């Protein structure tokens, strides 16, 4: 079988798998099966991050993204973001449950001193504690809301990335959710909706992918490649540079030891590529979304 090969048009977004696969939660649907005990990828050390930030300047990187696991488990996360804001805009994908107020205070000061935005993206599953806690763990809905309140208290306007549960297409549930956010002090919530990725723990929970759900060369005809993360991003991990933050478990997704070694095209041979193909750049912020005319 032949798979389409996607060139890196330009390295717009540089991702850091900053806390590896280590997370304080163990969501049943986590697409790279993160948990407190999953150390297949570890914490990135500060010097690796600094070296990559330096290297990224000559490559013309536009924005930096931090993911995990839970980035704020990294003992030097505040410092890492402070450093990054000297190079460009930073976005952290967090579960929102482990913030300390003094970190947020420092981060707000760092953002104020910088030209660039520091965006927080907080993930939620569904509009209710029932839906969310079933996947993220007991009591997490409340803990996430607390995290959102902490961010708001420090003047951040987090982007809530919500993956609605299957049965949640009732508009009243959505309206109730928006009201709940208001009651928690978020009167102009920034919301982003995500589809579920059926890999990792998710494949065991729901249904895995069907064999025919692969991207074929024919499917690329007339398709805007900029919709795919691998067309404009790479991700730095403690085990080398990978093509995207989604395929960490695929051996061929590791492209090299350093950024400059990882700029080659990538063949979309994996089933998650099919989801990317359908839904586009899941990982980008709305302010950076690319779409061809």
């Amino acid at each position, binding site marked *: 079988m032949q798979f389409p090969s996607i060139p890196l048009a330009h390295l717009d977004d540089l991702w850091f798998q900053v806390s590896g696969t280590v997370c304080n939660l163990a969501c049943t649907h986590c697409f790279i099966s993160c948990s407190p005990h999953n150390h297949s990828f570890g914490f990135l050390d500060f010097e690796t991050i600094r070296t990559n930030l330096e290297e990224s300047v000559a490559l013309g*990187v536009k*924005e930096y993204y931090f993911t995990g696991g839970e980035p704020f488990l990294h003992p030097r996360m505040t410092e890492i973001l402070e450093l990054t804001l000297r190079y460009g805009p930073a976005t952290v994908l967090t579960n929102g449950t482990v913030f300390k107020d003094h970190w947020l205070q420092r981060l707000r000061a760092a953002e104020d001193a910088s030209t660039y935005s520091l965006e927080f993206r907080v993930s939620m599953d569904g509009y209710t504690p029932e839906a969310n806690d079933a996947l993220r763990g007991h009591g997490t809905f409340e803990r996430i809301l607390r995290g959102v309140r902490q961010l708001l208290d420090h003047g951040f*306007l987090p982007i809530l990335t919500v993956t609605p549960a299957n049965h949640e297409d009732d508009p009243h549930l959505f309206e109730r959710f928006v009201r709940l956010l208001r009651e928690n002090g978020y009167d102009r919530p920034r919301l982003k909706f995500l589809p579920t990725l059926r890999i990792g723990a998710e494949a065991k929970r729901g249904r895995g992918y069907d064999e025919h759900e692969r991207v074929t060369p024919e499917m690329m005809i007339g398709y805007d490649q900029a919709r795919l993360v691998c067309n404009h991003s790479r991700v730095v991990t403690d085990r080398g540079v990978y093509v995207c933050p989604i395929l960490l478990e695929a051996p061929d997704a590791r492209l090299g030891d350093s950024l400059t070694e990882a700029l080659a095209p990538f063949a979309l041979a994996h089933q998650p590529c099919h989801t990317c193909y359908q839904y586009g750049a899941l990982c980008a912020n709305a302010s950076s979304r*690319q779409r061809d*005319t």
Partner: protein
Amino acid sequence: MPPADSATPEYRRIAVFGGVYSNYLALAAALDDARRRGVEACFCLGDMGAFGPHPDRVFPLLRDFGVHCIQGNYDNSIARGLDDCQCGYTDPRDNHFARLSYRYTFAHTNPDNRAWLGTLPTALRLQLGNYRLLLCHGSPRQMNEFLWESTTSSAFLDYLMRQYDTDVILATHTGIKWHRALEGGRHFVNAGVLGRPENDGRPNVWYALLTLAQSASEGLVTADPALQVEFIPVSYDHEQLAAQMRAEQLPDEFVATVRTGWWTTCLEVLPQKERRCGRF
């Protein structure tokens, strides 16, 4: 910097307008202001229609004043008869308003003007003294790319300058002006827009004025005139525009923006820093 290419027009002072969004009253005021400041030429970076009333009133002004225009995503959509403005909103509320104004603008742009929009170039190059300028709509590589001040690294701007072999890039599309001086005497300028105020609670709009300023060492052979970038506020009769928008039954939310200077729609694309400055 290399000497001027003889095919590239050369100027010493120019006015650069961002999106007009059918705000012909602001366009007239800006043209008037620019002329009083003695510009040699005016440029418009595209998005002639959208948002405001009577889109056809913009075109005679652009032509009579000989404004050099490039094509924006809105113009591209209108010219090709696409069914949306290619801003790519995903928020249902933003989408609702974007569609309303797109349909209105399309229906009220006469076919000759639509065709004219289709003939506009997507970029222009010119010289300001020794500075090579590249004018585009979103970014040089993509008509509908948002280049916000708080989400565009200088490393990326340097890359664009190298890639497009230029010293100054001018763009619009986001609706909020900004300027960054880069190493090596290069500049990125987002000219803002004439179409609507920039979410700061003030009803005026903005354009960019670029001037070759003689340095203090004028007269010396070595003196290289520096590029001066200024943003000029433009006041216009925004209450009249608001009244006409109401008469045309354009959304109250748009009217409120014109009157108050706060954005009420299309907020999802704002990065955090820019969003924080607004009221909604």
